[in-house]
């Protein structure tokens, strides 16, 4: 067994390999727990009836979409600053899952909006910001796809990722200013205004989404490593030994 640091492609490949499936499996289990708490323990909402239960996956996916973009930007910065190969690979493996979360935030938000506000789409602060965040992700992915040389693609995406993340709070603030229809932030530092059981279920669901993200990202990272390290000895050895 080598003592390769996990902060190299080779080390990370092995490390991620050990964790990917366990993360996904635990994600499923935790999600089931969240589902149970959210549907069988939490009561019906007085105003919204049962439609509020979409909240668990809507808030979870929205938070993930935002957090993953920030995380992505951090790895972009690390990649530009340290010139280590692994950091841009991690950023690239986060992006598609982040984009998916942004899409799901939009979809679930839309389906929640219909019974709550009467329309599938409303230009409220949160949905609009989520849409723009989705565009930021798409831009990142489009740029990555357009540049064939992954060294240049990584660096270019790092720039747009950093510029994008600086703009996320600006856009959010702008859209909030522009429209304040959405119910005010229920989970603020001054204490949440939602039922404690619902809050618990929500946090458990968020945990499940995190675990899923880790699993999917590790899996994608492994593929990216194999694609980019094709010419490296360690990778070719593993392939020939059938230990991939």
């Amino acid at each position, binding site marked *: 067994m080598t003592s390769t640091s996990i902060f190299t492609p080779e080390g990370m490949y092995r490390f991620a390999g050990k964790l990917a499936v366990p993360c996904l499996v635990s994600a499923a289990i935790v999600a089931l727990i969240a589902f149970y708490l959210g549907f069988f323990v939490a009561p019906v909402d007085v105003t919204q009836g049962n439609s509020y239960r979409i909240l668990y996956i809507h808030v979870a996916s929205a938070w993930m979409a935002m957090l993953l973009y920030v995380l992505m930007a951090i790895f972009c910065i690390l990649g530009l600053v340290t010139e280590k190969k692994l950091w841009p690979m991690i950023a690239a493996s986060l992006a598609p899952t982040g984009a998916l979360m942004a899409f799901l935030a939009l979809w679930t938000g839309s389906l929640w909006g219909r019974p709550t506000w009467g329309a599938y789409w409303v230009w409220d602060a949160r949905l609009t910001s989520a849409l723009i965040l989705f*565009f930021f992700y798409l831009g990142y992915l489009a740029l990555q796809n357009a540049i064939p040389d992954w060294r*240049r693609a990584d660096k270019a995406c790092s720039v747009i990722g950093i510029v994008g993340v600086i703009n996320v709070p600006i856009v959010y603030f702008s859209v909030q200013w522009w429209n304040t229809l959405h119910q005010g932030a229920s989970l603020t530092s001054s204490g949440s205004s939602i039922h404690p059981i619902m809050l618990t279920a929500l946090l458990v669901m968020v945990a499940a989404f995190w675990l899923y993200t880790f699993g999917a990202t590790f899996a994608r990272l492994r593929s990216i490593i194999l694609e980019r390290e094709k010419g490296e000895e360690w990778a070719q050895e593993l392939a020939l030994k059938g230990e991939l």
Partner: protein
Amino acid sequence: MFRLFRAVLIRDLTLALRQKSDILNTVFFFIVVVTLVPLGIGPDQQLLRLIAPGVVWVAALLAALLSLPRLFANDFADGTLEQMLLSGEPLTVIVIAKVFAHWLTTGIPLTVISAVFALMFDLNAEVTVALITALFIGTPVLSLVGSVGAALTLGVRGGSVLTSLLVLPLYIPVLIFGAGAAEAVSVGVSSSAYFLIVGALTLFSLVVMPIATAAALRIAAE
């Protein structure tokens, strides 16, 4: 450093003025797009007055977008950009000079022409002044942010469409507050906050974007 700035600025302005069609095309596009809106929506004056600031700003965004390739593509193609990178001169100064030249040949003409829209949309004097002022303060953002997109997509296939995808979401804050300024005046609400925020966006872009653009140019030229 100021001599470098002046030299690049004069160069870019001279090149732009030699090829006047670029500037005129941008302005013409701006006018046409804005003109299309009443034709598509109907001549209801009250409605037009309401949507005018937003329409003008969206058209300005699109016109700015169209003119972005001009920033770096020509220099990239004939090797001048590489010379600039090799010269050892501070790249951010060169970028700021080029972006300034771009604004003088895009943002300023757009701002000036927008006075015409006061007639088209039957805007009163205060709204028109607010519209023009907001454009004047905010169009630099279009050039600054646009320069990042233009630099990132240099030489990439399908570059201009990709640039739009990258840059338009970044234009949203200045759109919201720029159009919002004139809208606020049109409903009689205080607009000072809007102007202040647009100004803040411009200053912020001025500080941050040239650095990003310079980095992107180095990446593109490798």
